[in-house]
């Protein structure tokens, strides 16, 4: 079996993620190199091109030698891509790579969250998204962390230390932010505010998952998969809502799920296109005199 080395580029609203994988038909594949960089007001085309070049160097591959460069997220930022896969397809595939037991994915990114039910191949069976309100998104957590003067990386651990979480509006980011300002004036502990925020998001995410009638293992992907406080809150919400038990897991590379999924699907698609081309050539040869 040929080992295919392919790249996946996930241009999200808050960060660019790049992964290069090697895989053979039927095997799980392995990661050769990967990187994540937050966009932070930089020109996204330039950032993506530079990060892609860096990851190619790390992996020891020439960009031109890659048979398939797959994008997900903002495709316009990657004019040199071979193909594009939609983000829920790539997160489903990336989740399966990082957790082979996953049959559902909670992709929580900077601008929205999405629950996806999948099969054993990573095929999307159905999905639900949060509404346009920012209150279920990473940008919301980031805003709150900034108001509270807490580094983003510390949010999860602080939230896990909360003893008396404060209830926050889970309907609207603007109302929730007003709640937070009131809590700060009342002297509520930062950890309890953060836990309240996590609970408000987790309740919405749990409802999304339940609406899909998911079972078994749920993989949390996207930027907020690194937020241990949120992942705990999701587990708690699902434990309290009297639905079927669900195992919520994540992975240190959960933020890379889209890029990994894109790379692996690129490999799959490349093999598929080669098979079709061979079949067409064989059919043409068979009818030739």
């Amino acid at each position: 079996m040929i080992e295919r080395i392919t790249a996946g580029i996930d241009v999200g609203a808050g960060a660019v993620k790049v992964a290069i994988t090697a895989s053979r038909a039927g095997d799980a594949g392995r990661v050769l190199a990967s990187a994540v960089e937050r966009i932070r007001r930089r020109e996204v085309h330039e950032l993506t091109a530079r990060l892609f070049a860096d990851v190619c160097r790390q992996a020891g591959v020439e960009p031109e030698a890659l048979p398939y460069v797959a994008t997900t997220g903002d495709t316009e930022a990657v004019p040199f891509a071979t193909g594009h896969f939609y983000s829920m397809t790539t997160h489903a595939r990336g989740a399966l790579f990082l957790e082979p037991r996953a049959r559902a994915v909670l992709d929580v990114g900077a601008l929205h969250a999405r629950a996806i039910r999948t099969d054993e191949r990573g095929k999307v069976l159905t999905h639900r998204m949060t509404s346009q309100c920012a209150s279920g998104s990473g940008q919301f957590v980031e805003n709150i962390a900034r108001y509270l003067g807490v580094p983003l990386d510390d949010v999860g651990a602080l939230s896990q230390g909360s003893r008396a979480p404060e209830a926050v509006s889970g309907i609207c980011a603007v109302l929730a932010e007003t709640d937070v300002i009131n809590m700060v004036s009342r002297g509520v502990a930062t950890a309890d505010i953060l836990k309240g925020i996590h609970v408000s998001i987790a309740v919405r995410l749990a409802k999304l998952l339940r609406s899909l009638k998911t079972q078994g293992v749920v993989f949390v992907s996207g930027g907020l998969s690194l937020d241990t406080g949120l992942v705990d809150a999701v587990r708690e919400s699902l434990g309290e809502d009297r639905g079927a038990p669900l195992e919520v897991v994540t992975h240190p590379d959960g933020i890379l799920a889209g890029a990994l999924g894109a790379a692996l699907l690129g490999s799959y698609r490349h093999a598929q296109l080669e098979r079709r081309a061979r079949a067409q050539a064989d059919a043409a040869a068979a009818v030739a005199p």
Partner: protein
Amino acid sequence: MKAPLAPAPRDADPARDVLRRAHALLEDHGLANAAAWKRDHPGRLAVGYMPVYAPRPLFEALGCLPVAVFGGGDRDVIRGDSYFQSYICHIPRSTLELGVSGALQGIDAMVFPAICDVIRNLSGMWQMLFPDVYAAYLDVPQNFRPEVGGAFYRAELERIASDLVARGALALDPERLRAAIVTENARRRALLALGDVRREEPWRCPASEAYAITRAGGALLAADHLALLGEYLAAIALRRGSPKDNVRVVLTGAFCEQPPFGLIKSLELAGCDIVDDDLQLGLTYIEGDIDAEAADPLGALVTAFLERGAATASRYIGDAHKGDALLARVRRARADGVVFAAASFCDPALLDEPMLEAAMDEAGVPYTSFKYAENTGQFHVIREQAGAFSDAVRLWESAP
């Protein structure tokens, strides 16, 4: 399939200037161009017309500038809404809004080709609201026998021609009509050449660009549109790039009220190469050349309509099988699937859709369907649906 050779920088795109001009025409519905043309041709008439098909060569032969009035796009509709119930599509509202707001002041006549009862009613409303503007309902035959439908259609064309002449158009001269038909045929062939590029090298000619370049022709004389098309085709031939692994789709159902430009772009961004569509069907409605050598050029225009009109929802197809024409388009375009995109409350498109979907089911062609309005501003859900469709067709070889 090899990846990355960096394409030409976007600001060095050889088609940039011609696309800019096309978009400028779209943004004001070609009205500035019509005003400029009227300044250059004092006394001549600008004749507005609605979808789907209008006999543009006839208008040109009468010395008029045909101007496609295909709705107001995403323009705010305030007064237009007050004339229609909530279950009526958006194009009559926005068109009326253009009228009552004075935006169509430079349009001397409005022709409403038969497509549905809403447009027929709009023609009556136009006559009452704008008594100084000539408004004609162009009834088209659904009986395609020359002695019945042909005679009727010819009488319709002669009636409108005569009314326009009474309002200042040039007399109908067979030689001028013949010349207009020759140019119209050339424009149609250029549009077919554009379609060839879309089918063979979709990366070179995205549907969103083809749409802009095609629709710009609604505001131009055929000769000017032919020049614009030639310029665009020459420019995109210079583009460097490589094929993308996108799903190839035929977009259908959008022949009247036009989807917002962002919707077409969203489909492309979701991984769809739209290799054929019916967005500006009127410009290629006649399949094949109109006989420019005929002794009776008006008769040739009528015969072309009777014998070679495109199969679309507003045309009766007798005993033919609904869906065969769409399937033929799918096969010609080597499309992987169909996107049914119909304007909300568009009876012709939505009543046809179940029959067309059944035909696609029968032929094993995957499809997805959604509705839009010309002023739809949020494309996320449509992009999500198209993205899921594109991935499912390519990866799993089935609709989601």
